[in-house]
């Protein structure tokens, strides 16, 4: 706030910086990691990939670390268990803790007591529920903020979940490469559908947001043709959608894609997911309280 000239404060459209500058970068990372961790766990549980579920667990731990790094007083974070009634950040904290706890037990059982199939299935279902919750809450935490019109959209949680699923599937593809060919083909097919869905959701979100308010419309203009255009077109569009879709379509018609191409698509998709969180958080603008001119 100190960088704002006193006569500019709330007289002009102002970008939110609390969740993007300095420590704020960590919350963008946490949202990204929460998304791909949730998406990866769901995909890995479906395809029964123990390594995939383990990586999802690791990513969730990393999300927790990123979350803590965002807080000024991380040692007080236990208090976040206290208010799940109204706060999405508190709810998210509980979801992450439950996901990590349940997945830890499930991974231990799957690795060392594989005959306990009943318990493993129950834990997988429960962990899957919290994986989904961990992924979607990041969208709700953002969309709940009615002060920032570009965030205040019901599409944001869907967008974050789809993007997380896309990233999670990409990581699972990397884990599966060199393994079961049939599973690889099936994964590629799922990724194609998710990528197309993601592209449609991003399009609908931008179109819908443009018509919601002046502040939201300005934010979309900044994303598409303003100061955030580079991040949006190169980060979100090129890396997150165009490159993976082109490689995916190529592999569909060619029958099989080379490992190099697949790795390019995977890395590109992950970069795109990260860019999407940063782009949306950076696009957050406050409506001025007074007209400037």
């Amino acid at each position: 706030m100190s960088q704002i000239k006193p006569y500019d404060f709330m007289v002009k459209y102002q970008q939110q910086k609390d969740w993007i500058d300095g420590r704020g970068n960590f919350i963008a990372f946490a949202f990204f990691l929460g998304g791909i961790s949730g998406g990866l766990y769901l995909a890995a549980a479906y395809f029964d990939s123990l390594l995939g579920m383990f990586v999802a667990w690791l990513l969730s731990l990393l999300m927790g670390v990123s979350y803590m790094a965002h807080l000024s007083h991380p040692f007080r974070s236990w208090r976040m268990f206290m208010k799940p009634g109204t706060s999405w950040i508190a709810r998210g904290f509980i979801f992450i803790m439950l996901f990590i706890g349940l997945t830890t037990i499930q991974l231990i059982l799957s690795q060392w007591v594989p005959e306990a199939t009943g318990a493993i299935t129950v834990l997988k279902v429960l962990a899957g529920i919290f994986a989904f919750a961990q992924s979607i809450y990041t969208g709700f935490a953002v969309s709940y903020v009615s002060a920032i019109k570009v965030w205040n959209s019901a599409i944001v949680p869907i967008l974050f979940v789809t993007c997380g699923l896309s990233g999670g599937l990409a990581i699972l593809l990397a884990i599966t490469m060199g393994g079961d060919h049939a599973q690889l083909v099936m994964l590629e097919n799922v990724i194609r559908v998710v990528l197309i869905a993601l592209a449609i959701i991003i399009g609908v979100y931008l179109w819908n947001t443009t018509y919601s308010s002046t502040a939201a419309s300005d934010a979309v203009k900044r994303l598409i043709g303003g100061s955030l255009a580079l991040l949006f077109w190169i980060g979100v569009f090129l890396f997150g959608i165009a490159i993976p879709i082109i490689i995916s379509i190529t592999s569909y018609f060619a029958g099989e894609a080379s490992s190099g191409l697949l790795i390019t698509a995977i890395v590109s998709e992950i970069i795109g997911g990260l860019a999407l969180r940063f782009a949306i958080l950076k696009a957050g603008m406050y409506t001025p309280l007074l007209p400037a001119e």
Partner: protein
Amino acid sequence: MRWGMAIELKRCVGCYECVLACKAEHFLPPDIFWNRVLIGETGKYPTVTKLIYNVRCNQCADPACVKVCPTGATQQREDGIVWVDEDKCVGCRYCMIACPYQMRMMYEDENAQYFPGQELTEHEKIGKELYPHQPGVVQKCVFCKERIDAGIEAGLTPGVDREATPACVISCPTKAIHFGDLDDPNSEINRIIKEKHGHPFHPEFDTDPSIYYID
């Protein structure tokens, strides 16, 4: 009981006395402002109107900041005052993001001083003793709740007696700011709001502010 303010915009001359009084009252560090004077313009020459709005936390009846706070650090008292328990705040900044009025700020640099490179002023030294602010927690206007509480305990009436009234209200040289109980239909503040058609700032934010502006 619900404490509220009514601010007469035509009386405000934009002297910033309320801002300084608040800073002095709470020993606020540099870059921390619990209230502000916003200055804007509308219209085009020759029919330009200058807008001067003295703004602070609106002590909303339905505050977004209280809802989003994950630890319960931001609380609302029975008299409507919204305050931050500094010992509970984790510094997640969700409340800062959620406040549509942007009336919250983070106190980060505990070494910041008004005259960098020089010794702390006596005021700064006293402030660190009397009104310490924790770094890494969120700051906001609390309607000078300490003055209100001490005043009520001494049998005084906030809004009537100076000692029980917020610093910004009593410091205003043009008496543009009024303070009182919004729940009391016979209070002076309710009479002013009713007679002069007071309205909340940006009612579309839908948080039911306790500060009314009179054009």
